């Protein structure tokens, strides 16, 4: 095909001939002082709080503080190009980001500008970054499960669609890994995922991108990245921008999952902004409204009612603690806002129990409503059993002589702990999880040496998938452990155990 230069020229010429420019009316002000990502401006007498403003050269900002004689503006972009006396224009619009299907598979900054070098984001739709969360009447209870693909979570702290489940733990305990596994597990489920990296190292974001790409998860995922080298305002609005992008899909009736990685860094960015704006500091020098900063963000995660399409937004906020200190300001705030938490411990992590979930402290307040019937049945007593096991284990360490029953209970406990271990980037289908947990709790692994449990479990999944596919399909379809399915499962497991006996 050959381009016709004349044709293109004539199209543009016609466009120019038909162009009737309108007089642009805008409210303006002037910069009095600028620095550290914020500017103080005079004028702008009718500006709205949160309104988008434009500096010369196209840098954008938004009105953050409306004061008697001046307006405090947060600059989103390079503030070094802005000088005292520059004109600031109001745009009459609240801070908005582009939304839509075109964002899927892309990595963008919190303003929607592409960062992945794949060209412009081709969408004409935008959505305000700040959006009032759906009211009580617009919601319905959380009841559909959102499978994370991680046995320990789906069995004991299940997450429902529209729930906010906090992932909390020290650095290097696998918080991001859980969130990424959950995203990977949404493949072919129609759930749109948004991963908001806030204050993360650029290298780790690149790593996450690569994992998502390799596992084919980018097709349904948007990555919003505000790295630690981005100015504080970008890190502050990142989560809100991500929420706006997810809401677009949610209000279209789709299910969405959003990961905020992590909110402690967002709180730090917000603290920086507030202190620079001379808002009074409170506890740990955070501003008084840091609770509202998180609560209004997390309230946007909802399960909408049928009239609104029944879409949902599940939020997995991440909080990093220091030395396991959950009673610090930000962790307690976010714990009280969310519907439960997954608590990760470095001790467990270094013992090799990965994911390093502390089962005793982790809870899901929506709980059993968000579990398939099958999982509810097999995992019902798992948490209590494990708690009893931990107690016994501590007791056994004293070197006490144990009776046979107690020893058996201990042995099974060790095997359950092994079964709940899972490798990274290897989410399991809920049916496979049910099989593994059922086999563990009913003692089918009792004869297997503890060190070989993981290997045997993998063999079991292979065995079920290849030789009892009909049973697995049925379990997948019905998602309940009816008498018939349980009978089939028992039969399959007995066959498997028999084969193990032959092998050894």
């Amino acid at each position, binding site marked *: 095909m050959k381009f016709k230069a004349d044709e293109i020229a004539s199209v543009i010429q016609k466009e120019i001939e038909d162009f009737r420019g309108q007089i642009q009316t805008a409210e303006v002000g002037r910069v009095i002082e600028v620095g550290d990502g914020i500017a103080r401006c005079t004028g702008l007498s009718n500006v709205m709080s949160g309104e988008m403003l434009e500096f010369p050269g196209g840098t954008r900002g938004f009105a953050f503080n409306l004061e008697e*004689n001046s307006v405090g503006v947060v600059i989103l972009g390079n503030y070094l190009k802005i000088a005292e006396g520059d004109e600031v224009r109001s745009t009459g619009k609240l801070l908005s980001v582009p939304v839509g299907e075109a964002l899927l598979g892309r990595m963008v900054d919190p303003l929607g500008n592409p960062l992945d070098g794949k060209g412009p984001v081709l969408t004409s739709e935008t959505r305000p970054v700040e959006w009032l969360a759906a009211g009580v009447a617009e919601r319905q209870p959380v009841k559909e499960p959102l499978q994370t693909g991680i046995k320990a979570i789906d069995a004991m702290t299940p997450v429902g669609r529209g729930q906010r489940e906090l992932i909390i733990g020290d650095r290097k305990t696998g918080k991001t890994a859980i969130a990424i596994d959950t995203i990977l597990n949404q493949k072919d489920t129609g759930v749109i995922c948004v991963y908001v990296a806030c204050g993360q190292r650029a290298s780790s974001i690149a790593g996450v991108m690569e994992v998502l790409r390799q596992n084919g998860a980018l097709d349904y995922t948007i990555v919003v990245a505000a790295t630690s080298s981005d100015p504080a305002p970008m890190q502050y609005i990142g989560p809100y921008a991500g929420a706006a992008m997810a809401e677009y899909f949610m209000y279209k009736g789709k299910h969405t999952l959003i990961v905020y990685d992590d909110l402690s860094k967002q709180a730090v960015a917000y603290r920086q902004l507030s202190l620079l704006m001379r808002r009074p500091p409170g506890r740990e020098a955070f501003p008084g409204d840091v609770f509202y900063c998180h609560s209004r963000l997390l309230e946007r995660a909802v399960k909408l009612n049928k009239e609104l399409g029944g879409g949902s937004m599940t939020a997995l906020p991440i909080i990093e603690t220091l030395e396991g200190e959950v009673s610090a300001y930000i962790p307690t705030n976010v714990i009280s806002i969310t519907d439960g938490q997954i608590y990760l411990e470095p001790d467990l992590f270094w013992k090799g129990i990965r994911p390093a979930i502390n089962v005793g402290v982790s809870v899901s307040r929506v709980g059993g409503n968000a579990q398939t019937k099958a999982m509810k049945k097999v995992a019902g007593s798992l948490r209590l059993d494990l708690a009893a096991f931990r107690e016994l284990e501590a007791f056994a360490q004293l070197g006490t002589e144990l009776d046979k029953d107690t020893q058996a209970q201990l042995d099974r406990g060790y095997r359950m702990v092994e079964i709940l271990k899972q490798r990274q980037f290897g989410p399991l289908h809920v049916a496979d999880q049910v099989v593994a947990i059922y086999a563990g709790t009913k003692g089918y692994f009792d004869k297997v040496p503890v060190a070989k449990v993981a290997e045997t479990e993998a063999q079991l999944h292979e065995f079920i998938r290849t030789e009892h596919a009909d049973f697995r399909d049925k379990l997948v379809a019905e998602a309940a452990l009816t008498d018939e399915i349980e009978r089939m499962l028992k039969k399959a497991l007995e066959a498997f155990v028999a084969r193990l006996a032959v092998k050894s």
Partner: protein
Amino acid sequence: MSELRSDSRPDSVLEDPGALAVSTMYAQSYMTAAVSAGSTAPEEELNSLIDDVLAKFPEFRDLLMSDLIGRDQKLVILDRVITPQCSEFFANFLRVLINHGRISLLPMIRSVLVKLQEQAAGKQRIRVRSARPLSGSARAKIVDHLKSTFGFEPILQETVDASLLGGVVLQVGDTVYDSSLRSRLKQLKGRLVEKAFNEIQSGRDRFSHPEGD
């Protein structure tokens, strides 16, 4: 016409908005007090003090505005030098300013006072930026149009900004009416880009599966 800024200050350096608010308060009070004191032209004495005394004797200005000199000393100086030559009302005004430590705001109070008087007379300052100096007829046209639209007597403050390329930009208060060639070209560019965007998008849509891939 008195300018807000003195010539030595670059255009980009702005007044402290807090000081402006305080000056406005003093200027308003001065005007109101002048009416009840029977003073018909309160700005006369103020202008004379600033232009004839403070401008001509910068050392005296520095002395009066310096923080090194105490208020009591300033009052003594005031009584010796200025009070014998001005009305009792104006002397009182200066005493209040000195007592409140606001004497350094005097030039700003003057400029606000001028604006307030203009407003009271139904006039308003309009900033006009154009690419080339306005011709007489263009100026008259702008004044007529502003008068009929806003209903006040405009005082044009003209500046020439070649980067506008053509057209004019009017600023009334905080609102800017921009019909410069530069912003029109920007609009045109935006529209062409948007059109190209839509073309590309529709081209993509033609090849993609309607239910997603």
